[in-house]
């Protein structure tokens, strides 16, 4: 049985078909890329899966439960966590408190009224920061972190809930080349260690082909291809969408 | 949060609380009024008591001590008045409080006076409750009350053929008292009278066109009006415009007072039966003396406010002259039954209910040379328009 089952998922904004009749499956532990040109509907798809938007039609099952239209908090509790395209961190909190804030709901402490109840969360928070390589920056306000560190921080926050599926919206966008691969490798290590399933969007084809077990391609809200990286590279419609295939060829030839 | 910051705040707090106590050679009294809210009345009022104060000063003060008045503006808000009273009594060491314009301010100050045992002389507030249902040892009132003025008007209204009446009054203590008193007295005099409509616009927020329409819809034969100030001006304008007053007699409280009458100009509604102040026509020697002094000092004719302010300060001077000491209890004992001379003649503060016997004038409105005036007026002495003593005794709570 697959971990995630998406059937006919649809969301329109006025006349824009942001997501249109999307259907796919995702197995436990699978790393799958969702690619497509700007405005293809990738982020909207994530918003639908994570409960931030309600679909106009279609169903989503996650780990055997129908999660269509559930609020984000319920979906998270079932084990589906996410990050955002623009790193969404709590700017006024330091890095440690960002992770502690992420831990609150799981620990059932979000309405706790005594400051000392926060203390037990510190160790786990530090461990999570360490896992993304931020332990040195625990005291730094999130607003003052570098862009890449904010992406890492977000990842730590998403991991706080021990998810089974991670949705990562462009995890490496805006990072310098070297940093990009460092992050991807760390990510891969974490994913393998916890047997996490990952669905991520990405514009950098090098990253996509490096880590994805499978690739899905969207255009104008619709899924136009699913397959292994090799299949996708050869897919004529995908090549057409990606402007004479330039991006794909570049990826082939790069180291 | 640093310690320096906290210390700064603490010092600031202390600095604000510097004491100011009266010296021996002066007597301080506190005067609280709605100077910024209803200047039409309170500015002449202030000029009135200033004139009296200057006369007292010129006559050598109060038994050689200088009378100092600390006056404050309550902006028409009872909460402000209470705060200021607290400051004047605790911070400035005044021996008594006077003033108040709005009835709710008066009642709030009266409550304060009872609580802290300070003498409060309500000068203008007309609410009956002030000396009756909420009366107590420490509050006195100078002006004829709502009931007294309603009594004067109801007596005139009873002579009219009208039987279907409507009322319009601001929705606060004074308005409610004024309507209740008028209804009770008029129906007592003429049981066949019915009241077919009542309008209660919020004070100074009248939507006059709508109120006039609503009154007209009930088609009363006569109207009793209690609105004043800006509400009155709008009510008169819309009422005239929409023909509300045609074929209807209006009986109206206070409208003959120049502060409310003059702004109406030639639009003043002729024929209304009103209480007021025909300042240019009252010709007793004591009033002439007051009027001339006032005009000389301020270059304007006196208003009702001027008369009230002047008389109030004279009452205070008479009290302080006579009282053996400045203790509140002594002052109260002295003021009960005190008689003194005023521009309207000799006035007495009744020991029974602390109401003074000051009266007012009742007459009709007319427009002469484009100027509104009162005609066919008479002075109604307050003493003649009060309920019998045993009724008053029943109205006042036991001490």
């Amino acid at each position, binding site marked *: 049985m697959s971990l995630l089952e998406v059937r006919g998922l649809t969301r329109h904004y006025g006349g824009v078909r942001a997501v249109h009749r999307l259907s796919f499956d995702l197995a436990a532990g699978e790393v799958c890329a969702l690619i497509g040109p700007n405005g293809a509907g990738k982020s909207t798809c994530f918003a639908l899966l994570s409960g931030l938007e309600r679909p106009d039609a279609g169903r989503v099952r996650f780990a055997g439960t129908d999660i269509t239209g559930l609020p984000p908090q319920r979906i998270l509790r079932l084990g589906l966590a996410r990050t955002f395209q623009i790193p969404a961190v709590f700017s006024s909190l330091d890095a440690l*408190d960002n992770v502690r*804030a992420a831990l609150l*709901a799981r620990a059932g402490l979000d309405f706790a009224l005594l400051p000392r*109840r926060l203390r037990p969360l510190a160790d786990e928070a530090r461990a999570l920061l360490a896992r993304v390589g931020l332990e040195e920056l625990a005291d730094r306000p999130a607003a003052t972190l570098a862009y890449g560190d904010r992406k890492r921080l977000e990842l730590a926050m998403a991991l706080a809930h021990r998810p089974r599926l991670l949705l990562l919206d462009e995890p490496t966008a805006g990072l310098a080349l070297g940093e990009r691969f460092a992050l991807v490798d760390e990510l891969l290590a974490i994913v393998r260690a916890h047997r996490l399933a990952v669905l991520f969007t990405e514009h950098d084809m090098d990253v996509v082909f490096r880590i994805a077990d499978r690739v899905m391609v969207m255009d104008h809200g619709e899924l136009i291809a699913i397959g292994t990286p090799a299949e996708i590279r050869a897919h004529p419609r995908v090549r057409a969408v990606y402007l004479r295939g330039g991006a794909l060829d570049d990826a082939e030839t790069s180291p | 949060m640093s310690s320096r910051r906290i210390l700064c705040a603490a010092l600031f707090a202390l600095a604000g609380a510097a004491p100011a106590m009266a010296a021996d050679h002066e007597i301080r009294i506190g005067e609280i009024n709605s100077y910024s809210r209803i200047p039409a009345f309170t500015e002449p009022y202030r000029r009135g008591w200033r004139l009296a104060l200057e006369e007292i000063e010129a006559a050598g003060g109060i038994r050689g001590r200088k009378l100092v008045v600390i006056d404050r503006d309550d902006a028409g808000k*009872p909460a402000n008045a209470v705060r200021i009273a607290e400051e004047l009594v605790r911070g400035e060491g005044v021996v008594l409080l006077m003033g108040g314009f709005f009835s709710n301010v008066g009642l709030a100050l009266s409550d304060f006076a009872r609580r802290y045992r300070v003498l409060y002389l309500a000068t203008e507030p007309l609410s009956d409750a002030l000396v009756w249902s909420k009366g107590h040892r420490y509050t006195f009132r100078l002006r004829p009350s709502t009931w007294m003025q309603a009594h004067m008007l109801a007596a005139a209204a009873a002579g009219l053929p009208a039987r279907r009446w409507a009322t319009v009054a601001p*929705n606060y203590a004074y308005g409610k008292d004024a309507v209740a008193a008028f209804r009770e007295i008029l129906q007592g005099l003429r049981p066949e009278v019915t009241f077919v409509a009542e309008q209660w616009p*919020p004070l100074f927020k009248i939507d006059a*066109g709508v109120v006039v329409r609503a009154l007209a819809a009930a088609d009363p034969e006569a109207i009793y009006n209690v609105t004043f100030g800006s509400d009155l001006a709008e009510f008169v304008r819309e009422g005239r415009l929409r023909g509300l007053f045609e074929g209807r007699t209006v009986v109206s409280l206070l409208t003959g007072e120049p502060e409310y009458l003059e702004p109406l100009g030639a639009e003043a509604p002729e024929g209304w039966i009103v209480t007021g102040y025909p300042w240019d026509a009252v010709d007793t020697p004591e009033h002439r003396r007051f009027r001339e002094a006032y005009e000389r000092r301020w270059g304007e004719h006196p208003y009702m406010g001027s008369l009230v302010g002047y008389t109030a300060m004279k009452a205070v001077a008479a009290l302080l002259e006579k009282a053996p000491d400045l203790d509140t209890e002594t002052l109260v004992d002295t003021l009960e039954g005190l008689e003194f001379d005023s521009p309207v003649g000799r006035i007495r503060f009744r020991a029974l209910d602390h109401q003074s016997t000051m009266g007012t004038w009742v007459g009709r409105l007319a427009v002469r040379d484009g100027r509104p005036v009162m005609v066919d007026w008479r002075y109604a002495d307050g003493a003649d328009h009060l309920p019998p003593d045993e009724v008053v005794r029943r109205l006042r709570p036991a001490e």
Partner: protein
Amino acid sequence: MGFFLVQFLTGLASASALFLVAAGLTLVFGVTRIVNFAHGSLAMLGAYLAWALVGVLPAGPLGWWGGILVAALAVALFGLLVEVVVLRRVYGAPEIFQLATTFGLALLIEDLVRVLFGPADRLGPRPPGLAGTVILLGEPMPTYDLFLVFVGPAVLGLLWALARRTRFGVLVRAASEDREMAAALGVDERRLFSAVFALGAFLAGLGGALQLPRETLHLEMDLEVIVEVFLVTVLGGMGSIPGAFLAAVLIRELEAFGILLFPRITLVLAFLVMAVVLVVRPQGLLGETETGSGPDPRLLRPLRPAGSRARLATALLVGLLVLLPWLVPPYGLVLATDVMVFALYAASLHLLLGPAGLVSFGHAAYFGLGAYGAALAVDRLGLGTFPALALAVAAATLGALLFGAVARRLAGVYFAMLSLAFAAILWATAVQWDELTGGDDGILGVWPDPRLSPLVVWYELVLVLTVLALVLLRTLIFAPFGLALRAVRDHPVRAATLGLRPGALRVAVLAVAGALAGLAGGLHAFAKGSVFPDVLHVARSVEGLVAVLLGGLHGAGAGPVIGAAVFVLLEDWASRLPWWRTVVGGTILLVTVAMPEGITGGLARLAGRWRRRVREAEG
């Protein structure tokens, strides 16, 4: 029949003037995103100017209409001046700073009008030619009102043509719909904002001036007008001019016919309608949905628990306060009590504005519920001081929960405006439901139990309760609950995807803030011995905001206490001056424009600079 027709037309006539003023506000908001609290003051200025001009210009139609027009133009010019000198500096600032700045302006303008035209009420002459009435279906109808009936739609049409047919209109629409796009189109934002503000001021001035023959001018017009205009713009949808027209007509007709059915709840009626509409359509009748503005950049610093020195200093201060009765005269104690009650109120508001990021613009609602709760407990139920205080807290908490249930999904300006409406409903209820509340006469005789009533005892009680409440507040802010609140404030969507429940957290924090404000209100009632509707008035809400901003928005409790102390003492001192509004208004402007971090922030910056200099001198 004729009666209803005339009543309907009278309602339309009143709606016209209201619409003009509201159109100005909503236009300015649409483009600059500023909610201009001083907009009613501009209308008042226009009305007084018109009164003065009509008085000096030669009698006759030309003089009258000329006076009205020149007055409106003068207000436009004045608005331009205000925009260039003051508002330009706060465009980027968070809503509360803008509200406070424009509130300060309102105070200044009120004093300006007082100086220019005197404090007396003014009723202007009627326009020559339109002074009479016509008979419609047997009922007299003033011709001027009939004229006004057409003014509203005419102005609406002109504004529509301006928006659709002129380049200015295109730019305005571009700027209100998509700022970045407008910037990309090469719109000179500064000039556009100035022009729009001047146009808005012109409409306000015109709306005010046209009321000249119908309404007495007085110095409280500004607040009266602005509350109604807020109502209309929010009901119609912020930024929507047709919405403002629709809402103005709705409100005025409601009043015109409501007065026939319920003569004593006219004030409540309008706000009730607004609340209902906002619950169903949070963006108003014709408004667009508004995404909440991002987190306040001034808050983007982590909170740190107090160090040992600060704790020691606080303990010393509390000790000093305990001894205060033996150090200062009685009036000083009265002031100190006022400061503490107000500090508690401000601190409870700060919890919403700061850690929770909720722009509560009607915090007086809870203060007033507490005050009336305590007063009614004493007056009606004959309860003692402590049960009455408990009831005060309960009443305010209940009110906060009710409001929270309704407003939990709203953000930014809409939350602010709904909270304003909530407080306004309660205020109107207190004024008009006089059987319960005593109306404008208030409730008197609310004194503490005899054993608590000596000034010193009462002071110490207030001190203990205030300190406890402040400690509780501070604890909350650093507790997991406070952390969750700050997370939700910074990024509600992120918080939701991490399992936090923004709605529930908001309701909870409203309840806490409401409870503490209610306690402050109850203490206030006992301290003054009386309660009046002004405890619920919008001015009281704004005073709380000002105290919080004075103290500094950032931080976890010290700011509002210091802000409250400064505000109460400043007001106590300034209220003796005839021009106290200028002092208070000027202070507000100074803080919001020149010292946006407030007193605590400013002092911290100075201290930092000083420390650095010392270090440099040593090194």
